[in-house]
């Protein structure tokens, strides 16, 4: 039998994928444009006898995740940009204590309260740790509803595997849009193995007592712990990098874009190809670890790049770092909640190619 294709909003598909991934506890606080996700979790988690709490704030929600995760269960929170800013404290502590967690950002435009329309202005915050201290979180950027569901589902195991929080960086368009989606197999949280690093059940686990903490007052010891974590980051950079390439091989100019912007670029790519222009698309799926090596390789082969973002230019800095001056890297962005049209992006390619 063919798999059932359901028509779902991005926000709801993310929720359903989390439920199916065995998410045992969800903590949220209302904010547009991710409200459908919190409401979906209220319905599904309560109906399944799992934990749903509408927290008093995003600060509380992420710290509830910290507590739940330290018991070894799959825990999640979600929000949109202003709320994600408030979660940075908790994310820093999660990283300091090496706890897994899934954090979803259905981003909107800023700074400040800004607007509720889609934006990619949280790239810096997402890929540079975001809070205080030396750390990174894994950042996955879906391009549509199906991928949002798939990446959310996978985020839980990736996060557990590396003991690093995983951030799903979507935007208001992906959260609000409906597409067909085939959902992954449900996992019963009760069947997931107990974690040897988690608190609770110490007698049954026959282990010494565990202290979940990010505190370390001895400089050498803290440095050693940070170095250990960065060794893990090194492995993550080798093993987890993901990207998609479309028509890159013969391309003279390659779009670099993620998420919603990549969809627009794909449309512009088709227009360009129809006009006989050799244009390709490089779409990072992991924003951290960033696919720098692959981009450097493409630069070696003489590709020039055009970064398209729903921001004033953030990922373009990583592209420039990767390309390291070997080839020109241009940028075109819209912000404030505006999404460029494929015609607009096509016009920019024509301008660059002198057509």
């Amino acid at each position, binding site marked *: 039998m063919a798999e059932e294709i359901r028509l779902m909003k991005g926000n709801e598909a993310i929720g359903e994928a989390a439920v199916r991934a065995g998410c045992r506890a969800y903590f949220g606080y209302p904010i547009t444009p991710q409200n459908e996700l919190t409401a979906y979790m209220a319905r599904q988690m309560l109906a399944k006898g799992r934990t749903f709490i509408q927290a008093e704030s995003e600060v509380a929600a992420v710290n509830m995740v910290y507590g739940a995760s330290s018991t070894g269960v799959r825990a999640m929170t979600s929000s949109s940009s202003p709320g994600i800013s408030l979660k940075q404290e908790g994310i820093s502590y999660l990283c300091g204590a090496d706890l897994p967690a899934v954090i979803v950002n259905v981003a909107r435009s800023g700074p400040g309260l800004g607007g509720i329309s889609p934006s990619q202005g949280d790239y810096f915050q997402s890929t540079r740790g975001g809070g205080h201290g030396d750390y990174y979180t894994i950042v996955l950027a879906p391009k549509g509803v199906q991928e949002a569901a798939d990446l959310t589902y996978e985020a839980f195991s990736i996060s557990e595997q590396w003991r690093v929080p995983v951030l799903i960086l979507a935007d208001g368009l992906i959260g609000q849009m409906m597409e067909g989606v085939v959902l992954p197999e449900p996992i019963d949280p009760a069947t997931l193995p107990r974690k040897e690093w988690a608190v609770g059940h110490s007698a049954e686990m026959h282990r010494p007592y565990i202290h979940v903490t990010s505190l370390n007052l001895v400089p050498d010891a803290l440095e050693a712990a940070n170095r250990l974590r960065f060794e893990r980051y090194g492995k993550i950079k080798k093993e987890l990098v993901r990207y998609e390439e479309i028509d890159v091989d013969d391309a003279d100019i390659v779009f670099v874009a993620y998420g919603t912007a990549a*969809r627009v670029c794909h449309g512009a*790519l088709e227009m360009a190809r129809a006009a006989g222009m050799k244009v390709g698309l490089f779409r990072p799926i992991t924003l951290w670890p960033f696919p720098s090596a692959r981009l450097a390789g493409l630069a070696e082969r003489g590709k020039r790049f055009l970064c398209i973002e729903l921001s004033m230019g953030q990922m373009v800095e990583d592209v420039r770092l990767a390309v390291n001056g070997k080839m020109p890297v241009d940028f075109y962005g819209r912000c404030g909640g505006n999404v460029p049209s*494929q*015609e607009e992006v096509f016009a920019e390619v024509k301008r660059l190619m002198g057509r």
Partner: protein
Amino acid sequence: MTEKTFMAGFGGQGIISLGQLWVYSAIKEGLKVTFFPFYGAEKRGGIARASVIVSSDEIKSPIVTSADSVVVMNQDSVEIAEKVCRKGGTILVNSSLIKADPARPDAKIVHVPCNDIALKLGDVRIANMVMMGALCKVTGAVKLDKLESILPSFFSSNKRSLISLNIAAVEEGKKAVSG
């Protein structure tokens, strides 16, 4: 095949359910779809708009900026319809509420008296279904042959009685635009 449709009207005219039923039917017919209702500032002003794409291929940009077809349900939305329709595209106007044609001589204008037909059937709220029938007939992009089987999941049980009325509205919409 790719059909990019822009739908516009005011809140309460059923633009959202029109778009959702259109793409849900398309999924059942094996097509890929995206449905993006504009949210945010526009919503508060009582305006309902949606980018709706059905395609046999992977859908690229989900935002319709050069529409093959445009559905316009009220007078206030005519201006945006004029802007978003591609050269040679089709604009389906709800002629019950829109008296002057969109100023797009290069586009095909199709008149569908949605409210009148819906009222004749007994319920003005199914004007959107009339329009869907017309859109189906004019574009041929979605056949709507699975509509009857998917409608039950769209209505709460106390509204199931409306299914046959909705189907009738779609049929009348098709007839209204058959030459």
